[in-house]
């Protein structure tokens, strides 16, 4: 009778726990969605930054023309006169996802525009990513850790920064794909089911479609497999988890046009093949070991080793020769710059010049993952108690992502889910210990005072560490405790993995008062985290960068100059006119102004960018000739000197010089610097004062305040009164932030002596 009652009670508690988890997950989803809406509330529902405009334009094309035209699209509106093969150079995951969402909504007669769907794709997928984190952490440690990790991920500022409403970029769906792929891998590892292995490959395919960061997955999983083999944790579930993924994953990756044959030819994937071979060797070795007697096995080993070593050396020699023959050893420039952080600044200035590719500063860790930064080590320790395949995987994940986030600020995004998982595990373990201490010491709740006495005696010596769980020797009386502990755990909806309940242990229990205080402090910690995250989302990461605001004494001032300039271009120029600007503004110009540009943010052709950079650094006549050879009609520069906007072209000018000088040696950086310092005032070098960028930025600037004081550089400019001979100004926006010039047509008659015609 008592047994069936307890069984019914535990079933009821199970059901209650499940329903509670479900509601918590729904709330976490709503939280993740709403915290990203600050940008829509404070500004408007607009696409942010630069890259999302390209994705938006591609999605527009997809929704208008259908999938076949999208797949075969050759875009002639960018990189004039080269054009760009969109179908083969874009990661299609994001656009296909948003396009499918739009199509489903429209077929259900919900007429949302493509822009709305694009703006809100990121928040939707953040909620789903939070649920995926719950699933992943549940596989590693249990439901309580899963819920905590999901709640942390919903709010972590690093993820918010790349997935606010309006940030329509690859990471919006890629982070979800990353977490989901890892979840399916761990699930396959834990269950050994081929069904989950298939799902894992399909999820990996979705990740390859979405983001270039998929190489992280295809290198982390082999690393983990190798770790398991080396630490003696090889099992047949490991084989089932890994081998089908490699074969199916490589095939699926080659299906994506952007990756194509790189899936088998580049060094980024070699690790997976190497470990594929290694796991087969290990599997065979274990199989033979199971079949033979130990002495025979020794004989087999010596035989194989002596023969196999010779073959191995030959194969390795061939491989090394192949790899060494390519100058970058088969790695792409971007991957190499991750492994060797100094590589980009030495050889590829374009990669080095992107601000997202700089190493992060220490404060940015606290800004981006806040409280999690010091919960992560606690989580790592908790993963070792006990160490399972899944927990060794998350430890490897956090270690590698910490390294890569230290190389590039943009990769803090990959660190965020790992940090949330670790912190979720740490917090959940801490909560478990404290609540258990309280439960055992409240006599009204527990049914057996004898058990309590036994526990509280052992509890007096405990410290206030979060990991106060020790495995002890089996005791006879301890058999009653697991069942009682299980009941209490279900009430708390904190489940320990079944491994622990099998190891019967006597747990240390902390004093009641310190447990209560510690619990309150943990809740306070969480409160600080929430406050910081909401502040970061509202103030730091919601700016759309295409609309700027500033608070002055007479209220909020809005700078909408960019859209003003693009609208002017689209209304006052011919459809086929070419616009030249620095590559930052290429995507926005094609998407909003709908004009052909010379270079854009894809930066795939360094020489073309160097041509534009050289033109900006040359004197007027030489620049006119370069632009005329490219059929350019209009030149666009961004100038922040009147309002104090610091990311303008004059501040970026040195990069133009460096990139241009990298290809055209007559542009030398020291020519533009006075004593190694970059100046635009009266002490600037004549080359600087005569170059096109200076002239186009500061033309007629003296008319604004009479003294031509540049607010960004905090100085008066050098050359104040000058005329343009080869360009004419056609438009300057309200705050002088964007200035558009037209190339003057060449003169019909050349005055003076008739020149000999040049061939």
């Amino acid at each position: 009778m008592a047994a069936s009652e307890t069984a019914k009670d535990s079933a009821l508690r199970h059901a209650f726990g499940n329903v509670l988890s479900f509601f918590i997950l729904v709330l976490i989803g709503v939280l993740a969605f709403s915290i990203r809406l600050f940008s829509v509330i404070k500004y408007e529902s607009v696409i942010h930054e630069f890259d999302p405009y390209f994705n938006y334009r591609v999605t527009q094309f997809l929704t208008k023309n259908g999938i076949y035209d999208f797949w075969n699209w050759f875009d002639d509106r960018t990189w004039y006169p080269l054009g760009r093969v969109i179908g083969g150079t874009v990661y299609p995951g994001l656009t296909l996802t948003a396009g499918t969402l739009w199509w489903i909504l429209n077929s259900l007669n919900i007429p949302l525009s493509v822009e709305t769907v694009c703006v809100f794709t990121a928040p939707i997928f953040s909620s789903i990513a939070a649920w995926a984190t719950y699933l992943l952490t549940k596989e590693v440690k249990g439901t309580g850790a899963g819920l905590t990790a999901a709640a942390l991920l919903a709010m972590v500022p690093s993820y918010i920064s790349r997935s606010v409403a309006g940030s329509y970029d690859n990471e919006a769906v890629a982070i979800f794909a990353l977490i989901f792929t890892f979840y399916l891998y761990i699930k396959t590892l834990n269950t050994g089911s081929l069904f989950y292995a298939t799902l894992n490959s399909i999820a990996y395919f979705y990740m390859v479609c979405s983001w270039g960061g998929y190489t992280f997955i295809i290198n982390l999983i082999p690393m983990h497999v190798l770790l398991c083999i080396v630490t003696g944790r090889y099992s047949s579930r490991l084989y089932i988890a890994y081998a089908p993924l490699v074969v199916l994953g490589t095939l699926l990756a080659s299906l994506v046009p952007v990756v194509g044959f790189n899936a088998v030819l580049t060094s980024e994937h070699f690790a997976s093949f190497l470990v594929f071979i290694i796991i087969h060797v290990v599997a065979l070795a274990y199989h033979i070991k199971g079949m033979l007697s130990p002495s025979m096995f020794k004989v087999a080993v010596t035989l194989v080793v002596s023969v196999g070593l010779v073959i191995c050396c030959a194969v390795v020699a061939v491989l090394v020769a192949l790899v060494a023959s390519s100058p970058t050893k088969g790695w792409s420039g971007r991957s190499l710059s991750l492994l060797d952080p100094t590589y980009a600044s030495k050889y590829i200035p374009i990669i080095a010049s992107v601000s997202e590719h700089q190493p992060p500063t220490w404060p940015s860790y606290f800004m981006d993952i806040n409280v999690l930064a010091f919960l992560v080590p606690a989580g790592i320790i908790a993963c070792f108690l006990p160490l399972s395949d899944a927990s060794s995987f998350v430890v490897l994940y956090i270690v590698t992502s910490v390294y890569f986030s230290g190389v590039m600020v943009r990769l803090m995004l990959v660190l965020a889910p790992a940090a949330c998982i670790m912190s979720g595990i740490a917090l959940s373990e801490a909560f478990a210990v404290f609540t258990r201490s309280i439960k055992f010491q409240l006599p009204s709740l527990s049914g057996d005072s004898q058990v309590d006495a036994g526990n509280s005696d052992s509890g007096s010596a405990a410290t206030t560490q979060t990991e106060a769980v020790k495995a002890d020797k089996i005791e006879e009386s301890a058999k009653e405790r697991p069942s009682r502990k299980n009941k209490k755990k279900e009430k708390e909806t904190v489940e320990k993995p079944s491994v622990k309940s099998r190891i019967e242990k006597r747990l240390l229990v902390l004093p009641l008062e310190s447990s209560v205080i510690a619990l309150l402090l943990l809740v306070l910690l969480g409160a600080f985290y929430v406050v910081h995250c909401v502040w970061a989302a509202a103030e730091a990461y919601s700016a759309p960068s295409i609309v700027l605001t500033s608070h002055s004494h007479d209220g909020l001032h809005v700078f909408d100059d960019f859209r003003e300039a693009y609208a002017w271009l689209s209304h006052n120029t011919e459809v086929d006119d070419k616009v030249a600007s620095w590559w930052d503004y290429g995507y926005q110009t094609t998407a909003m102004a709908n004009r052909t540009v010379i270079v854009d943010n894809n930066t795939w052709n360094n020489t073309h960018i160097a041509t534009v950079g050289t033109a900006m650094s040359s004197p007027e006549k030489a620049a006119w000739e370069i632009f005329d050879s490219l059929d350019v009609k209009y030149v666009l520069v961004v100038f922040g000197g009147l309002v104090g906007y610091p990311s303008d072209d004059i501040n970026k000018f040195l990069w133009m010089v460096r990139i241009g000088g990298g290809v055209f040696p007559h542009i030398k950086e020291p020519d533009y610097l006075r004593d190694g310092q970059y100046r635009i005032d009266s002490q600037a070098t004549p080359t600087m004062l005569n170059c096109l960028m200076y002239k186009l930025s500061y033309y007629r600037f003296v008319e604004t305040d009479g003294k031509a004081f540049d607010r960004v550089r905090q100085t008066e400019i050098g050359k104040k009164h000058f005329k343009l001979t080869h360009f004419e100004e056609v438009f300057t926006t309200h705050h002088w932030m964007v200035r558009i010039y037209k190339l003057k047509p060449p003169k019909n008659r050349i005055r003076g002596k008739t020149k000999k015609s040049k061939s």
Partner: protein
Amino acid sequence: MGKSSTAKDAQALFHSLRSAYAATPTTLKIIDLYVLFAVSTALIQVGYMAIVGSFPFNSFLSGVLSCVGTAVLAVCLRIQVNKENKEFKDLPPERAFADFVLCNLVLHLVIMNFLG
């Protein structure tokens, strides 16, 4: 002297391997034969590519990877169906076979798309 002892050891090893393998059930031997067939087909394809060149590369890749893929999946099936495997004693062999078929379906769908 050393050589003959290693030769004798090799022979003894070979015999014990043979006898141990003869004890495996027939179903597993059928799966092993299938794996052998797939791997040999892959090797034949690689040899053919070495003779006639690797254009079109996607056809070669899909051919080789389909052989390797079915071999790997068959090995997974063998692991799951093998009665000596303690980890999978709760898994009914029908379920293992259904998973095998599903995974093969996905693999061959991708292959046919990639074959070109």
